[in-house]
């Protein structure tokens, strides 16, 4: 049983950042803007979030510091995503191009700034955020063991973001308008919706969530930020497509990948896998191969937003 608890706890570390960032990508793409810049925005969010912790960790600690850092990461991500929004919406630029530019800029900026200020590119931080057991909830049998021990507050932020996103996109006026702009912006415009504003909102939300996701990725897995999020932005993009741009399916996809990734990284801690004569690299490949296989059988009917990637021009009907 302890193996199951261990796996459940580990899975959170991998799945939650993917979930948050993929949901961010969903807001952008369902408003009609392809956001390939998620990786870059994650790096920027993590850089500013960790940088904030690095500066203030002598005066603050624990959950207050982490929550403030989450806000900083969100703000940094939102600001950075504005570059993408401006190019894609106002200038009607090719969205792949501006996204690629952002992806290239972010790590270079993080390395440059860190090295110019402190000499080395790794930004160190002390992990004072680890929760051994959540009060009361951690004592619930089975569930408490699985979800409320050895955790980080970011896990619960991730679930909260999922619930809020699900509600917003499916049950609010804003969500409906956002979806309309991604499917048929001309029709949305004809009933008085400002397509540009909605698309800006979509991209900014994706920036906020990707920024938070970047920080969420670094906190549990490391004690320094090395100007990279290991391609998790691209994986989140994969989770988004895998999840068919729908909130619940994204949750499933993120956890599918998270569980696979956990097996890959923690197989030596699992008794029955440890004895098998299989090379380390094979385990590392499994999450990617499994995703490919599942996609092959589930992609016949793609539900991508119809107007995705097409700049909206008021003049064209």
């Amino acid at each position: 049983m302890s193996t199951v608890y261990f796996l459940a706890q580990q899975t959170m570390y991998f799945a939650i950042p993917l979930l948050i960032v993929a949901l961010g990508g969903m807001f952008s793409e369902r408003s009609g803007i392809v956001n390939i810049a998620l990786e870059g925005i994650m790096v920027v969010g993590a850089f500013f979030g960790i940088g904030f912790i690095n500066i203030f960790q002598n005066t603050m600690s624990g959950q207050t510091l982490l929550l403030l850092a989450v806000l900083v990461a969100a703000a940094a991500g939102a600001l950075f995503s504005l570059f993408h929004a401006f190019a894609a919406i106002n200038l009607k630029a090719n969205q792949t191009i501006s996204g690629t530019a952002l992806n290239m800029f972010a790590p270079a900026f993080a390395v440059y700034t860190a090295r110019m200020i402190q000499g080395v590119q790794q930004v160190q931080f002390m992990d004072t955020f680890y929760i051994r057991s959540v009060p009361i909830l951690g004592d619930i049998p089975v569930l408490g063991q699985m979800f409320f021990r050895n955790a980080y507050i970011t896990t619960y932020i991730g679930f909260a973001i999922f619930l809020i996103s699900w509600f917003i996109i499916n049950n609010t006026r804003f969500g409906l308008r956002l979806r309309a702009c991604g499917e048929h912006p001309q029709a949305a415009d004809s009933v008085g919706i400002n397509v540009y504003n909605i698309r800006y909102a979509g991209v900014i939300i994706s920036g906020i969530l990707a920024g938070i996701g970047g920080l969420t990725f670094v906190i549990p897995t490391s004690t320094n930020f090395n100007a990279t999020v290991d391609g998790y932005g691209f994986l989140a993009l994969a989770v988004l497509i895998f999840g068919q741009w729908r909130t619940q399916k994204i949750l499933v996809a993120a956890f599918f990948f998270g569980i696979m990734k956990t097996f890959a990284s923690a197989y030596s801690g699992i008794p029955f896998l440890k004895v098998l004569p299989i090379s380390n690299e094979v385990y590392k490949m499994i999450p990617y191969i499994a995703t490919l296989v599942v996609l092959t059988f589930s992609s016949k009917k793609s539900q991508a937003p119809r107007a995705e990637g097409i700049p909206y021009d008021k003049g064209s009907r």
Partner: protein
Amino acid sequence: MRRIKLLQYEGFTSFLSSLMAIVAGLLVGLIILLISNAEDAFPAFITILKGGFLDGTRGMAQVIYFAIPIIMTGLSVGFAFKTGLFNIGASGQFTLGAFVAIYIGIKWSFVPEQIHWLVALLGAMAAGAVWGSGPGILKAFFNVNEVITSIMMNYIGMYLVNMSIVKTVYDSLKNQTKPVLKSAILPKAGMDKLFNTGNVSIGIFIVIIAVIVIYIILQKTTFGYELKACGSNKEASKYAGINEKRSIILSMVIAGALSGLGGGLLYLSGSGKYIHVLDVLAPEGFSGISVALLGMSHPIGILLSGLFIAHLEVGGFNIQLYNFVPEVIDMIIAVIIYCGAFALLFKQIISRFIKKGTSEDIEEPQQAAKIPVAAESQVVNSETEENDTEQREDN
């Protein structure tokens, strides 16, 4: 008068807008340098601009050495772009090509010495092609988005290569591949004496041949026309009798072969470069995206933009003398690409400039008035369209 004639030429306006993007990128770079250290900013900036020209022939050799792999991955990404696919998997294809080239270069001592390097390069191309075909097949038959499959194939390829290295050609002391046999290293053909350094070989000529071949395929053959037609409208080309599944797979196979060849060329260049067994994707594949975008996916544009980016990279290496961090170059390139996305805006500015020019020039106002409209409507693919019409006439 002559100035206006020149500006009317469509290719020239796109060249001008690229130039404006480059100027904007360099300006941002200068500002970043000024903010971080105002004293040394200007000498460092001049060092960046001089790039490969700073160190005579050796500097130029360095530029060529940096340029070879990124031109190949750039061609790969650009070729796929032209056929409507986004090959973000150049990194995996590059790594596979590099490994197979090294493997053949070490293990296949039975191959005649004169053609050993050639066999290794062909092996690299084949490996890249196989890796590229994966996303192509999945896209053609199962409608899987090629972006996501390419990303997955990058990781699978990286781990597969790491595993294969450890099992076959591993130097466990240095955690990298063993050196290849002498016969597998690309011939120098006197280039080393010409440039006065050992880093150059016939690799750059192979790259130029690849550029020409891709140019001919895309612009002069029916096959290339079919690929481009599929890229611009899959349904229409299917209706016109083109086998669109075959086109998708073949364009990914060719794109993969180009990246694989790039990997072979870099690791057989005899410069003391080895694959390190680390869980990191090959950065050359992602540089290829920048090169392709800056070169507007045109083979010759890619050749030039690859050389230009390599030139800046050498400059970035040199500014470490002034205690600057070379990553400033990546930021400059990112800004250049970002501004390249503004092609439309720049073209409007240029056409406004033309308007001004003609209002002073009363002789041909009508003709000039037409230009801005044409410049606005043709954003990026202007060249493609021109060539397509030529092709149609040929057929």
